C-alpha cells in the first residue's frame, strides 16, 4: 500500500499542454504514474503522450475514470483549477504552483475541508511513492535519493528534502511515500492531517518530518502522537534552529514572532512525545536506526 498514489491511481493532469505540464507528464509516466487524461481549456482533441486532452475537468471525468488531479497551472489560476477539480468530485489534488495568493490559499483549503478532499501544495514538488508513481516533479532518477523502502516522509521543502532523503537512503533505508505539503503559509493539507494515512499504512515503519521554523504544524504532529492517533516512530529535521527572531527565513510564513514558532518550541513538543529531532540531516538516518532497532 502507498499513501496518496500508487501505480494504479488514475491521474488527470490539468494544464497538460503547457511546457511544464508536458515535460512533467512525460516524467510522471516514465516514473510509473497512471496518467489517464489531461485538461487544457480550448485544447480538446489534442493528445499529450498519447493521452486525450479535454476542455474541462467535467468533460474529462465524463470520459475517463479519474481519482486524482495534478495541476500544472500558474499561481493566479490555481484557485479556479482546484475548485474545478473539486467540483468534479476529485478528492486528491496536487498543485505545484509557487506564488498562490494568500487569500486564494485560504479559500482553497476551506473548499478542500468542505469537500473532504486532500489538496497537496502549493509551492511543493508534489507526492512520490518511489518505484510506483509520482505527482509533481521529483528527481526520481537520482537513485541515491528516491529509493523505495519503508520510511514515510513529509516535507515543506524541495532541495532540503533531497538532502535529507539522501541521508535516509545512505543509512540503508528507502521511502514508501513522500508527501510534500509545500512551503506556503497556508498549505492545502497540513502535516498532522497526513499522519493517519501513514499510521494505517502497513508498509510504513516510521515517519520523517522535514519542517522548519514558523507556524504550528510540527506541534500539531506532536499532539497527534500525544493523543495516540499516531504511534509509529517519528524523526524530525527542522531548519532554522539558529534563525534570529523577526526575520523571515526559509519559506514564506517561516518566521519566529513573539516567541512563537521557534524551532526550540517545536523540538520540545516532538521530544516530549518520544519523537527525535535531528540537529543535522545526517543524524536523521542514525535516529531511524535507533528507533527501528537496527
Amino acid at each position, binding site marked *: 500500500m502507498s499513501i496518496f498514489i500508487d501505480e494504479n491511481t488514475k491521474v488527470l493532469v490539468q494544464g497538460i499542454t503547457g511546457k511544464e505540464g508536458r515535460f512533467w507528464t512525460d516524467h510522471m509516466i516514465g516514473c510509473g504514474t497512471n496518467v489517464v487524461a489531461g485538461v487544457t481549456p480550448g485544447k480538446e482533441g489534442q493528445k499529450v503522450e498519447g493521452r486525450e486532452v479535454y476542455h474541462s475537468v467535467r468533460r474529462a471525468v465524463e470520459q475517463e475514470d479519474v481519482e486524482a488531479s495534478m495541476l500544472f497551472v500558474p*499561481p*493566479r489560476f490555481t484557485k479556479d483549477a482546484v475548485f474545478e477539480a473539486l467540483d468534479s468530485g476529485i478528492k486528491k489534488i496536487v498543485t505545484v504552483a*509557487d*506564488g*498562490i*495568493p*494568500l*487569500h486564494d490559499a*485560504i*479559500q482553497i*483549503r*476551506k473548499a478542500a*475541508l468542505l469537500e473532504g478532499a486532500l489538496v497537496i501544495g502549493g509551492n511543493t*514538488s508534489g507526492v512520490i511513492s518511489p518505484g510506483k508513481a509520482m505527482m509533481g*516533479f*521529483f*528527481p526520481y*532518477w*537520482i537513485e541515491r535519493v528516491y529509493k523505495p523502502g519503508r520510511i514515510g516522509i513529509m*516535507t*515543506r*521543502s*524541495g*532541495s*532540503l528534502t*533531497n*538532502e535529507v532523503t*539522501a541521508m535516509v537512503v545512505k543509512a540503508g533505508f528507502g521511502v514508501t511515500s513522500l508527501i510534500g505539503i509545500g*512551503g506556503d*503559509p*497556508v*498549505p492545502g493539507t*497540513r502535516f498532522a492531517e497526513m499522519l493517519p494515512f501513514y499510521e494505517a499504512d502497513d508498509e510504513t515503519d516510521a515517519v520523517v518530518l*522535514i519542517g*522548519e*521554523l514558523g*507556524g*504550528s504544524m510540527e506541534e*500539531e504532529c506532536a499532539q497527534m502522537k500525544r493523543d495516540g492517533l499516531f504511534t509509529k516512530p517519528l524523526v524530525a*529535521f527542522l*531548519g*532554522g*534552529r*539558529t*534563525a534570529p527572531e523577526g*526575520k*523571515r*527565513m*526559509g*519559506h*514564506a*510564513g*517561516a518566521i519566529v514572532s*513573539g*516567541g*512563537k514558532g521557534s524551532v526550540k518550541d517545536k523540538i520540545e513538543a516532538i521530544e516530549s512525545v518520544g519523537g527525535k529531532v535531528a*540537529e*543535522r*540531516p*545526517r543524524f536523521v538516518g542514525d535516529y531511524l536506526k535507533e528507533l527501528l532497532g537496527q
Partner: protein
Amino acid sequence: MKLFEYQAKETFRKNGIPTPQSMLITSVDELGAASDMTGFPLVLKSQLLMGGRGKAGLIRFVKDRAQAEEECAQLFASYYNVKKILVEQAVHIKSEIYLSITVDPVAAKHMIIACADGGVEIETLAETAPEKIIREYIDPDSGISPYQMRNVAFQLGLNGDVMKKFSSVLGKLYTAFKANDAELIEINPLFITGDEDVVAGDGKLSIDDNSDFRQNTYEKTREYYDSDAEYESALEGIPYLQFDGDISLMCAGAGLTTTVYDLINYEGGTVANYLEFGGPNYKKAVRAMELCLKNESKVILVVTFGTIARADVMAEGIVEAINRLKPDRPIVTCIRGTNEEEANRILKDAGLVPLYDTEEAVRKAVSIAAGGDA
C-alpha cells in the same frame, strides 16, 4: 509588502475608517502648514517600518510650535534615518483597543483579533495574558456578518453608540483586509475618544506579495528596505537577508539555505548574507553573486540540490558569474541534483573543486573564513 503607517491610514480613510487629522512632511519647513491643519498639541510620528517606534523615541508628543520645531529637527537628524514624519492632531483619548485581522491557516478562515488593552504588543499579551485576547473567525467566502462585529464589540465591553461605531470600523477594516489581499491589517491602538468617537491611532498593513499582479497601489521603493542589497534583491524577487558575518550564502531552496545557515552557526562560522536563488531564480547566478559581492564577506558558499533547478545550469551560471564578476574571494561549491555529473565537470573545467556533501562544504567555508586555505 509592509506599508508605512501613513499609507495604512490612507487605506483606512479610503474605506471610511476615521483617522486623526494629519499631514505627511519631509522637512521641518513643512511643519507650519501641517500644524496649521492639526492645531496643537500634535504628535510627530517618524515613518519607519520598524516596531517599537514609541520606545525608540521616534514618536513625540508636542505642545507648541517651538517644541515641535525642535523635536522635528531632532527626528530628521536621528540615527534612524527618518525621511518622513506624519504630523498628527493629538486626540483626547478615553481608552485604547487593539484590533487586527489576519488569516488562520488551520481553520482556513479569516481571524479577527481584538483586545481591550490597546497599545501593547499583541505578542507580549499572548504570553502574559492570553485570556484577554478575543478571536472571531470569518468564513472567507461569506465574509463578515454584523453579528460578528457586535460579538467582538460586546466582548470588548463596548455598548451603545461606541459599540455601533466600533462595529462599523471593524466592518470597514474587514473590507480593506480583503480588498488589499492583506496578510495583516492592524489598528493598534484604536482610540475611543472623549467624544465617544472611534479613531485609528496607528495603522499597519502588510500586503501579500503573491498578490502583486492584482495589488499595485504601492511601488517597492528603496525606503521599504534597510539596505541596498535587500532592495535590489527584492526587485529581482531573490530572497535575501542581510547579516554582518563572514560567509555569503548563495544557496538554492528555502529549506536548504536555512539549513546551511544553521550548519555554519554550529561550526562556529558567521553569515554575511542569506541568499536563495532556487526555484524561479536558478538562472540568476550572476545577479546573485553580484549581490553577495556587495558584502565584505570572506567566502561565498554555494549549496544546491535541485530538480527543475538543474545542477548543470546552475554550475554554468556560477562559472559565468566568476568570469564576469572576477570575485575577489574564494567560492566553495556543493551542487547536486538533476545533471549533477555534468555540473561537476563544468565546475572542474573552470578550476573549481566541487564538493558533494553539504557539511563538508560548510566546514570548508568556515575554515576559509577563519583564515584557512581556499
